[in-house]
């Protein structure tokens, strides 16, 4: 059973990675910015979720609040942080983003304390057996929400006018805007959607660990960069595959590779190998 358990744990971790990484890859696809501060939004999402749940004892309300507030925060970050430096060389927004992320982590520590927050009453803990796999409700919901949101995103991108505008802007912003697409709106919307997905994964992470702490974003933040590079930057499908694969590999890696490497550096081994062999990413953009 160990084999299967590890697989499921890997899937679970992979869905969380996937939800964060999709937002990041959307931002990269549109603006060519490596948005490290995205993980700060993930942490913010977790905090809002715990605080609202503890106040109102409704987890659903907490997730919705968190999605909206974090989505707005993402738009503000775009406006204040990235928009003015879009014409600079790529390392400028990257370093600015790292600076912002470090500052955000410190602000969480200063406002909410270094030891983090927990739920007063942890929601979604009833066990639920589906197909003879026994998981907690929260774990099922994590996997389901990851699949659901990504399907929604795929629908949005492929079947709506909005998605068409988004894809046009990714391909060529100037031509898109000359065809009447409001590229500023597309960018704001992009940040809103990406950030609210990060908020969802922050909420799920909070429930799975019953803890939010200032540094909960620091490992994901850099691992996400590895994932979106492996997934072929800006490629949503590739990013998801990379996220789930990494989740599963890490899950087995903790058992079989532990003498050599710690879990968090496995992603970077793959990153370095992959970039050296295929500098354009494992799954090339179409």
């Amino acid at each position: 059973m160990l084999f299967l358990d590890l697989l499921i744990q890997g899937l679970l971790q992979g869905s969380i990675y996937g939800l964060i990484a999709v937002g990041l890859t959307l931002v990269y696809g549109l603006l060519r910015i490596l948005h490290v501060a995205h993980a700060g939004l993930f942490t913010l999402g977790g905090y809002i979720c715990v605080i609202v749940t503890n106040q109102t004892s409704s987890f659903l309300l907490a997730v919705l609040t968190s999605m909206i507030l974090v989505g707005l925060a993402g738009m503000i970050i775009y406006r204040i942080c990235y928009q003015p430096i879009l014409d600079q060389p790529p390392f400028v927004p990257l370093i600015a983003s790292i600076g912002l992320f470090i500052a955000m982590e410190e602000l969480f520590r200063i406002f909410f304390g270094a030891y983090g927050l927990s739920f007063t009453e942890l929601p979604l803990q009833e066990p639920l057996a589906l197909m003879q796999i026994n998981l907690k409700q929260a774990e099922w919901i994590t996997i389901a929400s990851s699949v659901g949101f990504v399907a929604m995103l795929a629908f949005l991108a492929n079947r709506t006018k909005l998605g068409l505008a988004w894809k046009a802007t990714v391909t060529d912003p100037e031509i898109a805007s000359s065809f009447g697409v409001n590229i500023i709106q597309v960018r704001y919307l992009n940040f809103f959607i990406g950030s609210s997905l990060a908020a969802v994964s922050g909420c799920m992470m909070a429930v799975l660990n019953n803890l939010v702490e200032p540094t909960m974003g620091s490992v994901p933040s850099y691992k996400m960069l590895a994932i979106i590079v492996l997934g072929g930057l800006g490629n949503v499908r590739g990013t998801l595959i990379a996220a789930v694969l990494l989740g599963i590999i890490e899950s087995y890696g903790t058992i079989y590779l532990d003498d050599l490497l710690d879990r968090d550096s496995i992603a970077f081994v793959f990153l370095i190998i992959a970039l050296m062999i295929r500098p354009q990413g494992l799954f090339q953009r179409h």
Partner: protein
Amino acid sequence: MAYEISLLIVMGISITAGLSLNLITGFCGQISLGHAAFMGIGAYTSALMTKNGFPFFPSLAAGMLLAGIAGFFVGLSSLRVRHDFLAITTMGVGFLFIGLVRQQDALGGEMGISGIPDPGLGKIGFLLLVLGCAALVILFCQFMKRSWLGFSFDVVADDEDTALLMGLNVTQFKLIAFAIGTCLAGLAGGLYAHNVRFIDPESFGFIESITVLSMVVIGGIGSVWGVVIASAVLSVLPLWFQFIEDYKLLVYGLLLFSVMRFSPGGLSAIFSKIFTRSLK
């Protein structure tokens, strides 16, 4: 007095570290987010050697050599990927270094290496050594900037494709920049290990890489004096003002962000702007 000496030692080591990254990122335009790993290689090599009875100076040199060799190989990656991809690759190298060290018992694992022997130079002697190293590195960088090597680095940093068209051997220059820069980082790491006399994986983690990078970026990428001043000030600022120590990372983060947002050229750009304006 002892306190002032230790402040100056910290300052000198930071200047060496800052300039070593400036050589790669500033002079040659190759961004590195894993610089602390090379300091780590220098620190671990020299610390393990002096702990096993080797004399101080050969150990320091061995640390530099090993860091430089590692840097040469990491530099190979800069031939494959550029700009932000190179940034991610070097960041990955940094995380990989810590991940490896953490799990090796021979390297002290999570607990690190403690009881690193005193170099036997006395407090003043060590200070002179550190300041001497920093001064030599400053002179070396100044000299580099004006040498043909420095000019070639400049072209590579400005526009790689043009450099290629001009018949410059871009590959060679990038590798040289990485090898020299990481070798000097190894020096800074060795000095750090024998100053603090305790090292663990966390001392060379991502935050440390970012700290060094912020010295370079805030000082002004590619400017020698800007980086010297920024390294000196940023390294002792938290020690001088205790309240900053608590908010050290917040200050670093905000500084990094604001410099990139408002003046990507750093301090040196601000100064030269003020200076040229006053000349008019």
